[in-house]
């Protein structure tokens, strides 16, 4: 009897192995395969590395705990991206609530006026690639959430329209529409970079 080389198995075979035999090695390989793509996806969606790492960890814990809810009719990548997307949305909502609370409580006691710092970059600073990345990320965060998720999955994660439709639970037509609207918003926001 030859030993199974788990690295040669597909994602679906690995999760089935984890479901049936509770093989921890299969789970570890899945984590290894998906930790970076999921981190990239969640980071582009949230724009914060700390909370992004937490969300990806939480995603993997959910995969571990609810492995039996996965059905082999769906692709594993679709399932895991759906979980990560939902957790990222929850994190965004939590962050919004926190922001509203902190703004409301600020200056209540001493009648101070709000002074929100303007952290926008000037065009003459656009030299370093790291800064450029940051500008793109900031512009990206200004795009509506529903469009942003679709654009990230298509243009950064390079998933097919069908996969994106499955992940977001919408039709392919709606996916295309959202992606184009998101791109249009981003195009306006990144005009300065494109005119260089």
């Amino acid at each position: 009897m030859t030993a199974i080389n788990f690295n040669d198995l597909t994602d679906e075979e690995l999760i089935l192995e984890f479901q049936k035999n509770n093989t921890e090695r299969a789970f570890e390989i899945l984590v290894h395969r998906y930790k970076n793509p999921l981190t990239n996806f969640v980071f582009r969606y949230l724009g914060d590395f700390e909370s992004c790492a937490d969300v990806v960890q939480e995603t993997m814990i959910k995969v571990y705990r609810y492995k039996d809810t996965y059905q082999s009719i769906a692709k594993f990548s679709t399932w895991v991206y759906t979980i990560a997307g939902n957790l990222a949305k929850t994190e965004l909502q939590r962050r919004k609530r926190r922001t509203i609370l902190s703004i409301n409580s600020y200056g209540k006691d001493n009648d101070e006026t709000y002074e929100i710092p303007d952290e926008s970059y000037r065009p003459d600073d656009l030299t370093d690639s790291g800064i450029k990345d940051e500008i793109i990320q900031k512009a990206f965060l200004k795009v509506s959430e529903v469009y942003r998720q679709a654009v990230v999955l298509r243009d950064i994660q390079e998933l097919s329209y069908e996969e994106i439709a499955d992940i977001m639970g919408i039709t392919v037509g709606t996916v295309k529409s959202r992606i184009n609207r998101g791109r249009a918003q981003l195009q306006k926001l990144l005009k300065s970079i494109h005119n260089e």
Partner: protein
Amino acid sequence: MNITDDEHQYSDVIKTLKGLQKVSAPENFEADLRRRINTEKFEKKKSFWEKLLLPSRLIPSGALAAIVVILLFVFNTGSGTEDNPLLMPPRIREDVIASTELPPASTQTPSEETSTAKVKNDEVNPSANSFQEDFQSLAANDNAATESEVSNLGITITGGNQPYMPGNVSAVGFSNGIPFNKNSLRYRQRNISPEEKAQLELLKKKMMEKLEELNK
């Protein structure tokens, strides 16, 4: 990924997005994940009922329930909305009024009325003596033919050709046509003494003899 027609107009955006640096997971990602999973494994999940029946939840909710019950008791006993039965007007029983309609007044002499009253009294409380009087009265009217009418009693006895039996009262009714039978009579049942019983038997015997004579 192939660029479709829709994507041509946003090619600059797509190019920019593809040019972004890939973000990788932190170095200790897998170790942290393993630690978190192991921590969760040893944390026994409490069921809904276990959580619900925790003393920290049970005591306040129990106290609240007790307060509610006490308050309900206090306010319910204080609000006396019920009528005092002693001050309430008596209830009018229409069924009693309807059944107490008297038959039309008869043109009887005072002596006859006395006799009627006596008979009516006997209906309510028959005794051996009243039976005796009735039978004597019937015997006195032995000349009655097919239909004997005891007008002073307000009672009509039909079927005169047939022998009269004390238990057979189905043919007996008021002269105004309102029927009555034994079941509708409200007479008091009483235990009779052996002497009374003997007297009654004697009367019965005499009655039977009389009826036989009449039949002949």
